[in-house]
């Protein structure tokens, strides 16, 4: 072996770049694409990746298929009413088919799911109600996550009395039995669909959702990149809007799904008790069945099964999609 040290070849390894100046080519490459288009592309890329992850989960796809099926029903109803079905017979609220009597009539070629005790078409009722269920669920979910995310982020970031106030409020809201409260409210006021969405959104938004989102925000607040943003000169609002909330969004989206489930369920219960001022809904269909005395009559299954099954299926579907999203959002839950 040689005794003297050879020239070390690693000395030539270049750690830094070639200098401060950009060559013309790079400069043009930068100008070629406006920033917003780049961002749009990135967003599309992120969504596509998440979609691919989502599709790996069978449960989520089943949920999504059910949701799409019901969305299809909701969209098809106005078309059918306008072109195929005679409004006098098929209107979900004031329709009546004299030829199908006695009512409730079992499923037939004219009425695939039969008629209800008042002679109205069950399929038409079912399809008409679907739109309200979706709107109710979405509005309630949007209100919930808007409240939950902003309060959660603020409470976690600022702490102090803001935190104390909203967390105690959350404790209070959580201890209130929501359904009972809604029943009482329904007795005191005329609850209609938008009001119901608002009440459910507020109850859920100031309650458990806030607590969960806040705890997540707390883990984001202590990340070093938040400190780095502060050192960069970022204001509180910059940090909350640019760092904390974007990192909360996946969780937020997840809780939207669960709120939809809660809202549809609440609607069913209130309508069943006849406490909701609504033209037609799945809950109201069961209510009508019950008040006409057919609730436990298995001979007239077409009165109770379609709305009951729909409530169950759509609630389950949103829950399943939520679970699948959970796996997209939390890589730890994913299988390798």
């Amino acid at each position, binding site marked *: 072996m040689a005794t003297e040290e050879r020239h070390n070849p690693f000395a030539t*390894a*270049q*750690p*830094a*770049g*070639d*200098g*401060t*100046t*950009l060559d013309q080519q*790079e*400069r043009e*490459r*930068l*100008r070629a694409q406006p*920033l917003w288009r*780049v961002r749009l592309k*990135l967003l599309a890329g992120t969504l596509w990746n998440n979609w691919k992850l989502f599709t790996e989960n069978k449960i989520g796809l089943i949920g999504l298929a059910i949701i799409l099926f019901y969305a299809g029903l909701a969209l098809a109803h106005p078309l059918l009413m306008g072109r195929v079905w005679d409004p006098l017979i098929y209107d979900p609220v004031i329709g009546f088919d004299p030829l199908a009597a006695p009512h409730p009539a079992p499923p037939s070629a004219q009425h695939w799911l039969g008629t209800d005790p008042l002679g109205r078409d069950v399929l038409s009722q079912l399809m008409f109600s679907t739109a309200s269920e979706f709107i109710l669920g979405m509005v309630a979910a949007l209100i919930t996550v808007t409240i939950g995310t902003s309060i959660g982020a603020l409470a976690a970031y600022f702490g102090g009395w803001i935190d104390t106030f909203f967390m105690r409020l959350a404790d209070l809201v959580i201890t209130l039995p929501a359904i009972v409260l809604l029943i009482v409210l329904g007795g005191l006021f005329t609850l209609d669909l938008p009001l119901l969405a608002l009440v459910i959104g507020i109850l859920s938004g100031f309650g458990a959702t806030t607590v969960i989102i806040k705890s997540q925000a707390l883990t984001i607040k202590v*990340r*070093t*990149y938040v*400190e*780095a*943003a*502060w*050192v*960069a*000169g*970022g*204001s509180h609002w*910059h940090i909350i809007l*640019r*760092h904390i909330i*974007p*990192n909360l969004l996946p969780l937020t989206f997840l809780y939207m799904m669960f709120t939809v489930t809660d809202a549809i369920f609440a609607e069913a219960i209130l309508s069943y008790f006849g406490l909701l001022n609504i033209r037609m809904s799945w809950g109201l269909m069961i209510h009508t069945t019950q008040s006409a005395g057919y609730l436990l009559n298995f001979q007239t299954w077409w009165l109770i099964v379609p709305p009951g099954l729909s409530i169950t299926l759509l609630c389950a579907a949103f829950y399943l999609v939520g679970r699948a999203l959970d796996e997209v959002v939390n890589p730890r839950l994913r299988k390798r």
Partner: protein
Amino acid sequence: MTSSEALVRVEGLRKLFPLNAGFLRAPTSFIHAVDGLDFAIAPGESLGLVGESGSGKTTTGKLLVRLLDITAGHVFMQFDGQVLDVARLQRSDSKTFRRKVQMIFQDPYESLNPRRTIFDTIAEPLQVQNIGNVLDQQERVAELLNLVGLSPPSTYLFRFPHELSGGQRQRVAIARALVINPAFVIADEPTSMLDVSIRTSIMQLMQNLGTQLGVTYLYITHDLAVARYMSTRLAVMYLGKIVEMGATEEVLQRPQHPYTKALLSAVPVPDPRWTRTPVEIKGGISKPIDPVPRCRFYDRCPLAAKVCEDNDHPPLEDKGSEHYVACYRV
């Protein structure tokens, strides 16, 4: 160095963290994380702050960038003739402060927001301080990417942190710190999470850029060997106090404080032929909760005597050629 030359001058800096404070109840005891620091950093030099975990070195760094509020003492910084008192920043000074003082963090996996692109991360100081329009910012970020060795910049600009390796992420973090041309950068263990083969290139990058861009560093590390390469002067911290400070090679070759000696002899040497002098001190570092007024190192010191117990912690004294030691017994 006279005080007017210094870029950063720290006087009696203290940070106490209250313990067991409760609702409407005043805290009864405090952790003295940083307990009366005095030092100055000249423009262009690099001061290494070394110590074990719990010595208060990271807290000191966070105080200097105002990530934490200063309990007591002064931190003066001088930029282009303008003197800022960092403990009491006025609104107008605050702008200068944020432009001139930046920080590089330890963990490149934690310090970059996973949902923001490399461009957004590096441009953040420009964006929040409204410097330039979007095109200027893009160009500046691209320049910086070039500078930190991530070239061609257009291939990195719109990637996300998870697409980069640890070393590349730390380069991004360095670019973010340098994008607004700061004069003073606090580097908190920027290489401790990186592998050896990548660590050296990051160290060299920081040194080259420091010289090239005229940046003064406060380099915080637990690793004396790294500090040797990254700093011109060295300050050794123990339980919130500086126990020894001087030119790097001077402190490493002729350590005087018993703690520095112990620390040095405990560092493993990458040479199986080397036999180290055994470490004389015992036990581990404790938490500085309401420390009794005596030398902080008393419990573990091989030289401990009555004078160390009867008096408060010894002051830093110049033992010649700006080699400061805080010990009654040397």
